[in-house]
C-alpha cells in the first residue's frame, strides 16, 4: 500500500437531501503522514496530550483522521506514557 493516499476522499452527500443541504466536511488529514513523521515518542507529552480526550481516553481515529499506522503509533506511545505516569489513565 504505497503511494499517495488520495483515493479515499470524502464523497459529496450521496444520499437524499442533496438539493437542500450540502455538507462541506473538511477532509481530515493524518497529521503524521503529512509531516512525514515516522516515530512517535512516548516522552513527547505535549504532542500526546493532543490525542487524549477530556476523560483521558485516546482520541479515536474517526475524529483525529490519523492513518491506521500512525494511530497505532500514537496508541503505543500513550500507553507507554501512561505507565510512566506522564499521562493519566483516567480523570474524574
Amino acid at each position, binding site marked *: 500500500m504505497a503511494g499517495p493516499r488520495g483515493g479515499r476522499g470524502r464523497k459529496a452527500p450521496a444520499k437524499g437531501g442533496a438539493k437542500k443541504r450540502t455538507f462541506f466536511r473538511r477532509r481530515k488529514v493524518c497529521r503524521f503522514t503529512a509531516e512525514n513523521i515516522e516515530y512517535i515518542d*512516548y516522552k513527547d507529552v505535549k504532542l500526546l496530550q493532543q490525542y487524549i480526550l477530556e476523560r483521558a481516553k485516546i482520541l479515536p481515529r474517526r475524529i483525529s483522521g490519523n492513518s491506521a499506522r500512525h494511530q497505532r503509533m500514537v496508541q503505543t506511545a500513550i500507553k507507554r506514557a501512561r505507565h510512566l505516569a506522564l499521562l493519566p489513565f483516567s480523570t474524574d
Partner: protein
Amino acid sequence: MRTYELAIVADPRLSDEEMIALTDEYKQLIQSRGGEIVREESWGKRKLAYPIRKVNEGRYVFLYLQMEPKTAALIPEVELRLKQNDRVLRYLTVRTDLDIKRATNRAKPGQAIPGQEPAPVEGEVVANEEVS
C-alpha cells in the same frame, strides 16, 4: 547493534546525590556486562499524572543504551533489579533500533516529493512566455 531506552521513575524523596547514586548503580551494572550508555537524560522532579504509592511526584531519568544482541541478555536482569528496588516507582525499557531503522528506510521515498515540486512551476513559466 541494538539500541534501547531505559526510563526510570524514582522516589521524589531521594536527594540529588542519592538519585545519582541510584542511576550509577544501574549504569555500572549495564557497563560491566558489555552494554554501552550512549546518552543520559534527566528531567528532575516532575509531577505524576496519578499518584503511585501515595506519592505525587517522581524523578525521571532516561538512559539510552547500545549493545550487541548477545549482551542484550542483561536487560531482563536490569529489569529484575529495578523491580526489586523499592525506590523505583516505575521503569520502562523500549527497544528502539527497529523503529529507527524503519523510520530511516521510510523517509527516503518521502524526500523525493520536494524535488518534484519545481516541475509544474517550470510549466507555468513556459506558458507565460507564450502569452507575452
